[in-house]
């Protein structure tokens, strides 16, 4: 009897050639949705999102982290995901042909029960640009390795120090002014060092 070995597909978002810390940043190209958007949000894509791994169980504001986020197609049709950081996608996002955007957000609920955006990033891609998308067939999964920073927040809106829950969410939108409901992961227990 044969044994099949399925290799884990990994999309590693570790920046390459990000330049010096003080280097220039690319201005993100926006899509002009005046008169094009419906104001309505579409149903969530048929994806599940799981925090498959965190490099620590304790984070503080301003610290770096690496999260492995597993995206699985739980539907019956292929799902295309953008796969390059938005600034690496370059220009032309707002123009045809079709292009996708995925917003990855790391959220947290602090010891006082308040929800915070701890980190995030934006991916873009288009089937017409080679190497900028990943297609997931039904049942297939992809692990996104997201190295990010826990946000530094001044003042009373900062999360408090203590036990916290961390979760991830994924939002898909496109250059035709459509947005779909967010897909949210399970909550993972961490310890968060915020304001005292």
């Amino acid at each position, binding site marked *: 009897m044969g044994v099949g070995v399925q290799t884990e597909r990994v999309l590693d978002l570790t*920046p390459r050639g*990000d*330049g*010096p*810390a*003080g*280097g*220039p*940043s*690319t201005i*993100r190209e*926006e899509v*002009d*949705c*005046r008169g094009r*958007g*419906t*104001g*309505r*949000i579409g149903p969530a894509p048929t994806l599940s999102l799981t925090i498959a791994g965190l490099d620590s169980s304790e984070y503080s504001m*301003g610290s770096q982290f690496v999260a492995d986020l597993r995206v699985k197609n739980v539907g019956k049709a292929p799902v295309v995901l953008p796969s390059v*950081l*938005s*600034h690496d996608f370059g220009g032309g996002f707002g123009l045809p042909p079709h292009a996708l955007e995925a*917003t*990855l*957000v790391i*959220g947290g609920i602090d010891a006082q029960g*308040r*929800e915070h*955006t701890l*980190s*995030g*990033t*934006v991916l873009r891609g288009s089937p017409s640009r080679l190497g900028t998308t990943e297609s997931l067939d039904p049942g297939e999964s992809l692990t996104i390795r997201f190295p*990010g*920073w826990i*946000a*530094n*927040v*001044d*003042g009373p*809106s*900062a999360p408090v120090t203590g036990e916290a829950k961390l979760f991830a*969410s994924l*939002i898909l*939108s496109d250059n035709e*002014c459509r*947005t779909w*409901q*967010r897909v949210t992961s399970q909550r993972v227990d961490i310890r968060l060092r915020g304001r005292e």
Partner: protein
Amino acid sequence: MIGTARVRRKGRRHYSTWELTATFDAVKLDGDAPNKGLSYVTAIRHAEDALVHFSYEIAPDLEPGTTFYARQCGQGGFILGSVYRSNGYEHESGTQKGHYQQYRDKLAEPAVNHAKYAEPLWGAVSQTLQTFRDMVQGGINSRRVTLMNAAGVEACNADFRYDATCTPGNPNQGFRGNVNYPPYQPPCQ
């Protein structure tokens, strides 16, 4: 400060549309300042930004001067044209149960408001401006979905026969009359 939105009226159908994202500027401080190397959001644009707007459309038939409007005569159980029109405007752009009010209420929440989110953020010296920008953008995009969900709730006055006093589960509360569709019925012929 983000807290208001421009309201525009277009004309053809009943619906509201929102484009609620915000654009922002961020810098990494340079020079001999004590905060050299830290990143901040320096500006965030909303109401004056062409990319962000709240607009709505009302069917032209609901406007005075049309046959349909005139046939809503307020008699025989039919709604009055001006009331039907007013209910439509309230539902889309009103400040009681309107989509616009739902949007404004949600935007006023500090946890959702783009500016209140972005203002206290700062990026460490070792964090690139690009990753700081991407992080902020992720937070803004997330709030955009929250706003869209809040503004998209259909209150009981989504049926324009009802005014803003309507109450779910109470079909008589706020009901102002039936719609007289063609072929028009007496006494509103």
